[in-house]
């Protein structure tokens, strides 16, 4: 099989397209494991995307420093958005669903991200710095594994480390076990001396930071430019991914690459002029329809608890009600 075969190309670019989904879903997973549902992922991703892009077009030093700063700025921007949600749902105990929707409207395609993009004149410019494959091209040309494993940029490899880190954190460390306790039974965690409010705030903010990085993956690696609404619903797919992954980080990776590959399929079929019926319609819709389909499959059993949903997900914690 040549490296140009459609299967290899779709897998390799599926990993690239799946990376923002992976970052965002790992972030959402952390927030949800602490019991906070944040439907504002799309908005947080877009603000991260625009601020990361702004950074690379503002700073003029070497590539590595600028890109590291951009990722930092994107993370801070995403976390700042998450802070609004955290204050409303943790401190004020507002409805997590409506607050998350509000965050998407506030920060999303017609809101703050578009405002910043216009105000900072970011549209129609290519990125001054972008993530590029880090391995030498001789390795990228190796058969099959070349494009898939060695043709990726630093964000992809960092996301693999992150999957392991999140897994290790949640299953092997004391604070990680505490998070799970907070998400399953905050009253019990509270009586064990765990600060529920603090854990929830920190993990919601971490979720926002990762969503911001996921958004920046779009503007700094996949399509290095700023277009309003560039994420195209990726934030929502990331929320669905956490459900498919049964709240487990390693399965987030599998799911993210599956959906990444579906997204990679449409441009690839068009580039090869393969027409299968109304191609532009069904290939564009495929990731969204697949999300619905897989969501139906996993909700079939009805027993979400058994699948790993945190028992206190979406429920505000009121100490006085204990």
């Amino acid at each position, binding site marked *: 099989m040549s490296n140009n075969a459609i299967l290899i190309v779709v897998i390799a670019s599926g990993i690239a397209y799946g990376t923002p989904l992976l970052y965002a879903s790992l972030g959402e997973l952390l927030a949800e494991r602490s019991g906070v549902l944040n439907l504002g992922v799309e908005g947080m991703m877009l603000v991260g995307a625009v601020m990361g892009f702004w950074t690379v077009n503002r700073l003029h030093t070497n590539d590595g420093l600028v890109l590291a700063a951009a990722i930092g700025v994107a993370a801070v921007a995403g976390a700042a958005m998450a802070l609004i949600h955290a204050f409303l749902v943790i401190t004020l105990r*507002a409805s997590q669903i409506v607050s998350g929707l509000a965050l998407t409207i506030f920060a999303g395609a017609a809101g703050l991200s578009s405002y910043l993009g216009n105000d900072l004149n970011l549209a129609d410019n290519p990125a001054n710095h972008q993530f590029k494959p880090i391995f030498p091209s001789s390795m990228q040309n190796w058969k099959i594994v070349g494009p898939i494993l060695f043709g990726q940029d630093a964000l992809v490899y960092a996301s693999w480390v992150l999957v392991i880190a999140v897994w290790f954190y949640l299953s092997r460390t004391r604070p990680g076990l505490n998070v799970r306790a907070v998400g399953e039974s905050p009253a019990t965690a509270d009586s064990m001396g765990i600060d529920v409010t603090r854990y929830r705030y920190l993990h919601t903010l971490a979720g926002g930071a990762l969503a911001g990085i996921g958004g920046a993956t779009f503007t700094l690696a996949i399509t290095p430019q700023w277009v309003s609404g560039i994420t195209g619903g990726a934030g929502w797919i990331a929320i669905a991914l956490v459900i498919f992954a049964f709240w487990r980080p390693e399965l987030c990776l599998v799911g993210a690459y599956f959906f990444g590959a579906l997204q990679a399929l449409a441009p690839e079929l068009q580039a090869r002029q393969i027409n299968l019926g109304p191609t532009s319609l069904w290939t564009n819709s495929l990731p969204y329809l697949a999300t619905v389909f897989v969501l139906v499959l996993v909700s079939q059993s009805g027993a979400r608890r058994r699948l790993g949903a945190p028992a206190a997900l979406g429920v505000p914690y009121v100490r006085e009600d204990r």
Partner: protein
Amino acid sequence: MRIERRLRQPRWLLFAVPVGSVLAALVLAGIVLLATGHNPGSAYRKLFDAAFLSSGSIGQTLISATPLAFTGLAAAAAFRMRLFNIGGEGQLYLGSIAGAAAGLYIGGLGWSQPLVIAAMVIAGAAGGAAWASIPGVLRAFFKTNEIITSLMLNYVAGYLLTYLVFNAHSYWRQNSGFDASVFPTSKTVPPNAFWPGWQWAMQGGILVPLGAFLAIATAVVLWLLYTRTRFGFEAQVLGDSPRAALYAGMRTRRKILAVMAISGAIAGIGGASQVGDFAHQLDADPNGLQKQFYGYTGIVVAALGRYNPFAVVLCAFLIGGLQNAGNTLQGADFPSGLVGVMQGIILFCVLGGEVLVRNRIRFGRAAAPEAPIPLETAA
């Protein structure tokens, strides 16, 4: 800071919260404007001018307010039952696809105008209801989260809308004539499928579209349905306490299916009104109807109106003004995206305000217990 439940919810707060939310949003968005180097004073002067004060502005505002009234009512109908249908966007598109088909076909048969309009309304409602029934059925029979499924279908509906005119020689596309061979356009519906408006001699003549009246009528029907019928009562119980509804023997599944279909139908009529009142053809341009985000803004409208149908229509007018100002004003004083920022802030403030309605906030540590309610006033 401590938050305590209120035993009594003062009535004045129910009005104060939405009003306060809008005012707080103006202040907070003003801070955003200041922080990004704009002058909030002149931005707001332009906003109110473009939305409500300048000549012909109310007519323009009604063009945005009419679809928002429908999507707001659609969201309110579902959210009241804690069914989070955020697919109003897609249901509106499907309503306009079906409404345009009815206008083209039945209008082409030469039927009289009222019959064609009725057919378009019914077709739009059916299109929206059918699209909303997909998440409805999935929720009722497979317990699939309707938030994500209804949202995913918005994207699919958007692609479908664009596809019908830009990528296929469909029934909706103008397939003959010189212009059609240069750039894909939609067929215009025949004149008997144009919805009439009511001229109002103010600001130099305001055209109130038929859709605005239909939206008010829909609000009345929805209010009657939720406050005066058994169906509405059961839907409320189901929303507030699914377990109580189960023990009382209410049919959960049917209620979910019906509420989602009703919600979708309302958004769908909004889509038909887009064709009949304004565009007179299927607006499939990815930068046209799809950039207005009426479905998502409808959620803000519904929440600001606290899901009360009449308040929702009123809020649609208010938010419609904001939307209209965003469309007309683009420039240094009024950056695009500001409207979405303000809508988001309004929704945040409404949410924070809800907390004030239900709870009281005390500062300081020790709080005296709330005085018990005297029996006479409690009754």
